């Protein structure tokens, strides 16, 4: 599979050259600044707010990367026709799609890792100042390893979003792909509401449609354990595993669909 690896590495290199890592600098600066300001404002809640802000920032920056690089993965290549010379080389269209996806996952992982490290650094700096009494009063340890559970699920969620972006970009323009991916992301975040439609709506047909939609649409709300982790509430590893497995299967479905669509496409 060296072909897939080659394509993946080239996607990663392109993202680096595209100045994507600079958002990490923004992230780090944002956190540093926030930690100082918030310490003044929050009557002693700065650890909670840093964790909340840090996890939210990882989620949002990661989302931007996933959508904006994801949609360009295929559409950009088709639009500027660099794909013509590429597909004449000994790689199948499916290998191309998988390689592109793997490259984006690699980019995302590196970015998320760096942002998580930055978050832990800021928390360590904050914890340095605190007395043991203050530390004992926190709901969760300042350098809580459980934060990683939230980060892992954020990562898997973003990989699903990436797969969605990849899928749309195999057949539509970058702008439309971005809109559709973002729309699906929002719908997926509200997914939990669809499940409980029968409590709200009377029509059986609507309930049935909502239930079906709940299962078909990606259930992004399930990946959100940020609040629990920050409050030190237990998040079972089994839950993380099950949700990751769900994400993995959903990704497989999307990548397969993308490969199918892409394989039959005419490049005019």
């Amino acid at each position, binding site marked *: 599979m060296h072909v897939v690896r*080659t394509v993946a590495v*080239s996607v990663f290199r392109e993202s680096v050259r595209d100045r994507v890592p600079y958002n990490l600098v923004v992230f780090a600066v944002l956190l540093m600044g926030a930690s100082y300001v918030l310490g003044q404002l929050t009557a002693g809640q700065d650890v909670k707010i840093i964790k909340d802000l840090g996890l939210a920032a990882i989620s949002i920056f990661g989302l931007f990367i996933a959508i904006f690089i994801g949609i360009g993965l295929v559409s950009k290549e088709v639009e500027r026709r660099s794909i*013509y*010379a590429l*597909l004449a080389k*000994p790689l199948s269209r499916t290998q191309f799609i998988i390689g592109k996806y793997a490259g984006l996952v690699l980019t995302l992982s590196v970015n998320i890792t760096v942002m998580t490290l930055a978050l832990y650094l800021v928390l360590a700096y904050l914890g340095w100042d605190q007395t043991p009494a203050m530390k004992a009063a926190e709901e969760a340890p300042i350098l809580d390893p459980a934060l990683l559970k939230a980060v892992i699920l954020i990562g898997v969620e973003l990989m699903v979003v990436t797969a969605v972006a990849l899928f749309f970009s195999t057949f539509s323009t970058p702008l439309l792909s971005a809109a559709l991916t973002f729309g699906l992301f929002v719908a997926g975040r509200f997914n939990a509401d669809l499940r409980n439609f029968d409590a709200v709506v009377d029509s059986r047909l609507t309930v049935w449609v909502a239930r079906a939609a709940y299962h078909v649409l990606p259930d992004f709300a399930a990946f959100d354990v940020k609040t629990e982790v920050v409050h030190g509430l237990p998040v079972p590893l089994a839950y993380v595993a099950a949700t990751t497995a769900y994400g993995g299967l959903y990704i497989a479905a999307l990548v397969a669909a993308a490969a199918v669509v892409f394989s039959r496409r*005419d*490049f005019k």
Partner: protein
Amino acid sequence: MAAAIRTEALTKDYAVGFWRKRPYRALDALTLDVQAGEVFGFLGPNGAGKTTTLKLLMQLVYPTGGRAEILGRPVGDVATRRRIGYLPENPSFYDHLTAEELLHYFGRLFGYDAADRRRRVSSLLDRVGIGKERRLQLRKYSKGMVQRVGIAQALLNDPEVVFLDEPMSGLDPIGRRDVRALILELRDQGRTVFFSSHILADAEALCSRVAIVAAGRLASIGRLSDLHAFHLRGWEVVVSGLPQDAFDRIRQGAVRATQISPGRYAFELPLDQPPERLLPDLAAAGGSLVSINPVRDSLEDFFMQRVAAVGARDPGARGPEAQNNAARGPAGQSPQAGGSA
């Protein structure tokens, strides 16, 4: 001997229009074959279906009907791609990469190790004339340089069959001459070259056989010399330093006379007025000869005849808009491009 390239009734329809999709036949039952070791010219005006054919051969688009084979294997066979090279029309690659990086990237896709890649990349870039620019990002390249890089990437894997779509486009005369030399070199190395062009002179200089397509159909195929002549219509003679009275005298026998600048004139002489007879007159008047070029039927004229022939054989071939497309060939192609004396 097995054909290097073969198509059988290869057809491609596109659906056009917004509401009622009408099929537009870009290529209609193309059947041809190319023998190994040939330099095969695939000629036609813009919109004739040349690029469509190449895309069908590269499986960038899928045929509506018919089939095609390269080196005995159906088109799209991934293993065969190790033995072919392709230069797309007006190629564009990855702006953020340098020429070297691009070739290394493709080289990795072929599975070459680092040493092998370095050797291939450096020798190819030398061969196509990219010097120290090879370390600059492609976004900074001129069109001609991108074209050269395109040729380099098409040859990276020592292909047995090379497909070139409009290889001369974007090149200055020196570049075109280089590419011609390169194609002949490839032929001498025993490779098969399939290239498309709308410039007849290129085909004349290089090809053993040609196929001519117009409006999506094959109009002729065979040796250039066998194809019915591109009629010689006359000569164009450009002179300079000619005084007015000599000009007035000479223009009597000419079909057309234009002034390029004071003292510099172009005459179009009819077939029965060979330019040799003009020369003594010219010398006596104190002028000098700048160039002589044959005036032939343009490729467009030839195609108009061919298309008319095709149309007569088979009315309703494609539709009026397609005929207009075919007729709107390259702008003003007379006289034929050639060298200056």
